[in-house]
């Protein structure tokens, strides 16, 4: 499903070059539940952005479902993000002026799904995350857990194989956080591949495999199952 070899990422800030990733080799199979841990500045988010095709490597190769992302145009990358990847963020990142329904609808609109079918899909997704009664609520009228569940429904909109979650429980109390993790468990059982960044050792241990990052390098779990 995912194959990375020698992936490096350099950022140029003025005349200082900063290397966030220093050669990542990684293999992730279908239907894995991966946790990524590491201290701040270890390159977790950069790795996540590259995995999600928001960014492309400066060096090395990244193959997502056999496609080398370096060969893709910006429009192709947008399509990959739309169809193959689902993002879940720590800050939820819902559109503040749109209802739960409208937020979940966004990726479907980008995918060009027709009205009737789209409406049904959105309602199914919201039912799947248990928000049937919050369809017409705006983010300001929802709790943190509800917002994150809306975001997960949105991530699932176009049935992507890969779900990328960047500290999805970081802004939640432990109860809501627990609910979100059970939701991810369910998605994993349904056949999705889940990659989850976390600071929480408990959540890390909960994952099927844990990848630890430090200074832009993996220092255990080098493509091999660790747990």
């Amino acid at each position, binding site marked *: 499903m995912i194959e990375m070899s020698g992936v490096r990422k350099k950022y140029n800030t003025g005349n200082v070059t900063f290397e966030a990733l220093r050669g990542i080799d990684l293999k992730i199979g279908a239907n894995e539940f991966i946790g990524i841990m590491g201290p701040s500045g270890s390159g977790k*988010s950069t790795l996540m*952005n590259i995995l*999600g095709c*928001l*960014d492309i490597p400066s060096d090395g190769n990244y193959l997502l479902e056999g496609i080398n992302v370096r060969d893709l145009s*910006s*429009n192709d990358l*947008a*399509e990959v*993000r*739309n*169809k193959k990847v689902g*993002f879940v*963020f*720590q*800050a939820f*990142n819902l*559109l*503040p*002026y*749109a209802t739960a329904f*409208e937020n979940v*609808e*966004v*990726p479907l*609109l*980008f*995918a060009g799904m027709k009205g009737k079918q789209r409406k049904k899909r959105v309602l199914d997704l919201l039912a799947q995350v248990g928000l049937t009664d919050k369809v017409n609520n705006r983010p300001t009228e929802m709790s943190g857990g509800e917002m994150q569940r809306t975001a997960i429904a*949105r991530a699932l909109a*176009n049935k992507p194989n890969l779900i990328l979650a*960047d500290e999805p429980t970081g802004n939640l109390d432990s109860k809501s956080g627990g609910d979100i993790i059970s939701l991810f468990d369910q998605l994993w059982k349904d056949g999705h591949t889940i990659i989850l960044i976390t600071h929480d050792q408990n959540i890390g241990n909960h994952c099927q495999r844990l990848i630890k990052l430090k200074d832009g390098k993996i220092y255990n779990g080098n493509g091999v199952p660790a747990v």
Partner: protein
Amino acid sequence: MNPRILYNIFVRDFRKQKKRMLLTVTAIAWGTIAILLLLAFGEGLKQQMSKNRKGLGDGIVIVWGGRTTKLFEGLGQGRRIRFTEEDMKYLKRRMPELKHVAGEYVSWGVNYKYGDKIFSERLTGVYPCYEDIRSHYPEAGGRFINNIDIDKKRRVIFLGGVIKEKLFGDEDPVGKQIKLNSVPFTVIGVMKDKIQMGMYNGPDENVGSIPATTFSALYGNRFFNHIIYQPYEFDNMEGIEKRLFEVMGARYKFDPTDEQALSIWDVVASAREMNNIMLGIQIFLGLIGGMSLLIAGVGVANIMYVSIKERTREIGVKMALGAKKSYILIQFLIESILIVGVGGATGMSVSYILTEGFKRIPIESDAINFMGRPTVSFEIGLIVIAILGVVGFIAGIFPAMKAASVNPVESLRYE
């Protein structure tokens, strides 16, 4: 994009930066009013001009006799060419493209007398077609000279408004007798007031008209002062003028290229020139209005830049969810066009109300008679909409391009 979401974004932006948004929309509305009123003013002026021009007559050519300047078939220079009644009939026969041909006799000083009022004024001898081609329309209760008057050489007179005023004051003159150089004439009508922009000899309101046949019988004139013709079609005025020189040249033996033999005032050509001048004025007024709209457009671009800066995260999220750059571009473009659209619609409504209101003000003044009243035409509406579209597009495209170039990684970095 769901139009409801678009609407919600617009409303939210509006709330968030209410004052700035209100100022921007007002600026667009103001610019629209400026351009629309200026164009409407130009249109009113143009329409009034063409109305005023009809005071002299529409689509007519006035021809005076002249002197030959070229030798022709053994004949010398300096021969006078003048029109007679026979020439008039001859031209009617030879030039079927002419709807009307009519000569006019003029006498510069004739004594008008009614009761104890007496003065000297101009008198013309004319034909019935003058009613139409020279806009000698009678006021209610009167009539213009007709064919029977011509045939019977009746002593009837049609008065210009000023002469009527001087002779009769408030009295109704129709059917009354006046004396012209001591010869009694019956007044048959008074000319309706009109604005007359073009004239020869003087304004029509200062002249009395009698049948041409009566005129020549009474004063012995053999030659018309000039003739007036009106063709059926106006698209080949020059060709008709050339024909006139040929026909008259053959009749009086002068070189048809001798431009001095006849002198011509083509009212149609003058009207065309005037229209071009008016078009120039309208373009100028449009440019001035366009400038103020352009400034308003800068305001829109500004507010769009601010809005985009505040919404970089939203743009990043949309990109993460699979939005293509073109999609982001179009979204912001539509937003700015929406702002311009709302402002433009407001401005257009206000201008419409203003011009309609102005039309209803029942004042009559020389200024309005000359300048006309602002008039919004369909074309002006279209032009303004097109300009608004261009302003909206230009004001939107640069901010939208900036939005589309947002780096999703940067914008999603958690603060």
